[in-house]
């Protein structure tokens, strides 16, 4: 955290009418950027998240904001995003350099190469190109072309995250995920040809009908592609997705809990054996030759888990600055109509106690855990320090948490029950 000791935390007060006023759209400008006596303030904003809300089909487990059949609006979206980028440029340039950019979706690779070219030009002007900058773009295996790869790479993109989910046709069908697993191999090949070797593969396990062997098979194929990073998610039944509806109607049977646990543990072992560092509950980074280095972790996501600041761009993108969280309007029409800063929703400024809770929720997701000094500092603040301390002690005695190398972290058993351990600390 740029932690609790900073006094800026306390200074951000939200003007209530700005949030509650129903008539005029609230923007982040009205809350955070309004000039105050003493001139505009500065925050360190190391991360930028950009949301591209288009997909060519809606997968059944997906709860991201995206729309299909949108070719007519992609151009308008790109224009509008550039307008938002320009408007945000003073905030983004005001403080230190932007260290990470993550373009997610939706399917960012659905935008045409020319649109990307245009967009990248503005991105690099607003956030001056930095050698050390991590710049990730999410890609759907169906949409990666040599042309696009060239445009992305010459525009400074140095990391690609490929949604492959499974290599098994049958399980992809269960998810209603429309891509041919062959295209994952093809995409990786295209990226390598273009000179990019730093890529992540997203996988899902505990798909209804999947066996442990099916899953290990997926892992083997993944490893064969030699990614630098792997994300493995136990399938989540998000509210209001077709998959959840089918599950509730009894048309699909979720994987048995014990099997899911087995799959997760097998993942931990298999990827460790293959030389991957397990650094967050669902994330693994290839161990560089120097075992102490962490070069392949996703630095952008690390910003989330260490509770640092990042700025959102595009519809439904969420942002965080010093305990203030908000989300751009998750409706393309309203996003296109608003501007230059889009209307925002779900604005939330937690009090100190709430922030401490989030700090635990995020920090304990990291395998390296939280530094004991930080834990102590957090426990000595907030309304529920004593309650949290008791909960931590109980989890320590039950073996779900361990103190190791000056850190408090989840044990292997604790990893599987992270929510039960974390809930009382919230």
């Amino acid at each position, binding site marked *: 955290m740029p932690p609790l000791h900073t006094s800026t935390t306390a200074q951000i007060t939200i003007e209530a009418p700005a949030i509650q006023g129903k008539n005029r759209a609230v923007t982040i400008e009205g809350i955070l950027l309004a000039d105050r006596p003493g001139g505009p303030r500065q925050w360190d904003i190391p991360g930028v*998240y950009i949301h591209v809300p288009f997909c060519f089909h809606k997968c059944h487990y997906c709860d991201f904001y995206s729309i299909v059949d949108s070719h007519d609006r992609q151009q308008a979206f790109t224009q509008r995003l550039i307008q938002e980028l320009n408007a945000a440029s003073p905030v983004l340039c005001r403080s230190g350099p932007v260290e990470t950019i993550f373009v997610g979706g939706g399917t960012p690779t659905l935008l045409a190469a020319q649109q990307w070219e245009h967009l990248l030009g503005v991105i690099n002007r607003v956030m001056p190109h930095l050698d050390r900058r991590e710049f990730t773009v999410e890609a759907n295996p169906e949409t990666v072309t040599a042309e696009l790869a060239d445009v992305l790479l010459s525009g400074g993109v140095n990391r690609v995250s490929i949604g492959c989910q499974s290599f098994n046709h049958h399980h992809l069908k269960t998810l209603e995920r429309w891509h041919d697993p062959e295209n994952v191999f093809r995409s990786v090949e295209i990226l390598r040809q273009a000179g990019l070797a730093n890529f992540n593969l997203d996988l899902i396990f505990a798909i209804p009908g999947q066996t442990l062997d099916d899953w290990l098979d997926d892992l083997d194929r993944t490893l064969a592609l030699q990614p630098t990073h792997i994300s493995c*998610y*136990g*399938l*989540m039944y998000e509210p209001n997705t077709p998959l959840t509806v089918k599950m509730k109607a009894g048309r699909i049977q979720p994987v048995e*809990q*014990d099997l*899911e*646990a087995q799959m*997760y543990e097998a993942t931990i072992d298999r990827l460790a054996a293959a030389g991957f560092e397990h650094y967050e*509950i*669902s994330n693994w980074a290839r161990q560089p030759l120097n075992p102490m280095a962490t070069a392949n972790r996703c630095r952008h*996501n690390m*910003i*989330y*888990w260490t509770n640092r600041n*990042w700025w*959102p761009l595009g519809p*439904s*993108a*969420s*942002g*965080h600055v010093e305990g203030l*969280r908000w*989300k751009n309007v998750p409706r393309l029409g309203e996003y296109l109509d608003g501007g230059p800063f889009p209307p925002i929703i*779900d604005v*939330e400024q937690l009090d100190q106690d709430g922030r401490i*809770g*989030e700090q635990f*929720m*995020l920090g304990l*997701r990291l395998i390296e855990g939280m530094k004991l000094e930080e834990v102590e500092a957090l426990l000595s603040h907030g309304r529920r320090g004593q309650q949290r301390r008791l909960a931590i002690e109980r989890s320590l005695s*039950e073996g779900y948490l361990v103190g190791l190398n000056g850190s408090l972290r989840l044990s292997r058993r604790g*990893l*599987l*029950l*992270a*929510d*039960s351990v*974390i*809930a*009382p600390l*919230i």
Partner: protein
Amino acid sequence: MPIRNFSIIAHIDHGKSTLADRLLQATHAVSDREAREQMLDSMDLERERGITIKASAVTVQHTYKGQEYELNFIDTPGHVDFAYEVSRALTACEGAILVVDATQGVEAQTVANAYLAVENNLELIPVINKIDLPAAQPERVAMEIEQVLGLPAEDCMYVSAKTGKGITELLDAICEKLPPPRPPEVEETRALIFDSNYDDYRGVIVYFRVFDGELNVGDKIRMMGTGRTFQITELGRHRPQPEKVKTLGHAQVGYMVAAIKTLEDVRVGDTITLDARPASQPLPGYKEPQQMVFCDFYPATASAESPSAGKKGEFEALRDAINRLHLNDASFTFETEHSEALGFGFRCGFLGLLHMDIVQERLEREGGVEIVQTAPTVSYQVELTGGEIVEIHNPADLPDPSTIRSIREPIVKVEIICPTENIGDLMRLCEGRRGTFKAQKFISEGRQILDYELPLAEIIYDFYDKLKSITRGYGTMDYDIVGYRQDRLAKVSILVNNVPVEALSLICHRDNAEQRSRLILQKLKKQIDRHQFEIPLQAAIGGKIIARESIKAVRKNVTAKCYGGDITRKRKLLEKQKEGKKRMKTIGSVTIPQEAFMAVLDQGE
């Protein structure tokens, strides 16, 4: 003006409330513009469920042969659980309209309610309703009425409460055929309380019928049963909107407000007289209603770790809600109950399962409380070795087995009306429930009456649903308690994580104890969430374990994805997890959801 007082009675859904609507319209009590469907069903719950729960009385006028008549009528509920409401309504009347659906014919509550009316010496007008429907068979139904009830087929009136056909003729028949109110028997004033409800501003509102003398605003009255006195501040009648009057005289029906604050001061069935000139004898009151099923209500609290758990005030809120509802519905009973595992709550008695359901829903809706309910049971008579007999309403209260000589359970006479072709299946159902065959009677081509004696405990839960499914909806049943009978009954205790949970214990026949127990444990296994440790489940009679199961420890509880946009939502989900779900009870270290307490009802099959 001559007066006619009558009730509308029928089997459920045969159209009583709709017929009442037509009577209100035909007598111009409501204009066509004001009319709604089932106007007298004023509670939200009644309108949502489309059934009448509470009887309501209205006053209208009708001109017959140049003479104006005052008609006071009461729309009654048809469901078997509310037979008590019907019997109260009947004591305020001299006549009744017996409505029978022309597409369904005579059904179980048609018979039961008709007998109730006859027992009360009421004159009956059989009315065959829904003759507008293509499937209507009015002549066949008229024959059934004659066959089963002994009312001449040619006396039946034919109406459609939907189209209004036959309504004027019915009103004429009411004036002509129903007897006038009996003349006063004494000079002093006597009025019978047949209902009451509670109004936040005016206190208790009392519904009554004047049998002798009259009541005036300003009168000081005395309740003959309780001896309490009050001053009448308002008198009125529903037409159907409340309309204030100064006086209510002989045979009239209406309501009064008299600054009555508490439920102890009014008893339905009590006689109102004047304090200055009291009558010497009260009117005959009512038989107290008989509660058939009993269960516990506890305030719902989240898990033990939640900040609201065990919060003072939840019990008090439930108590207030129960007290308040009891003013409107005196037919359920309650007493405080304390359970080691569940804390403070109430043991309540109900007329039947629908009644229980409705009381719970009204408590939650009108009282703003949330309730965890235990499985309903019947009452048992336990004969101790010393010869003493104790009545228990809760398996948890069963004395030590070594002190018990015998246990007796309530037996009901069940009357089923069903298509002939289902007789075989229904007999098998009854035999499987320890039933004794009594009689089989013919009603009409293709329909029969089947009489059985069954233990009440065997029919309270799913018997009716089974009957409905066997007969594809055509079967109906009525039941009445006939006494208690000894059988080989035993108490099965359920242990969760080695702790006996009294609220889950049950009394059942020794021969099915093992099988029932296994079913219950399997059900519990499905309903109790996995915990961080393994939970053994056991069923025992005395000290002997007769079935066991176990709930495995939770293996995985982890949010897979938590990125920038997920943080707030995930935090809220975890907060909810910490709070625990509502309608849960924590016993020892195990959290048990509401549904699990109902597991003991499962009969399998």
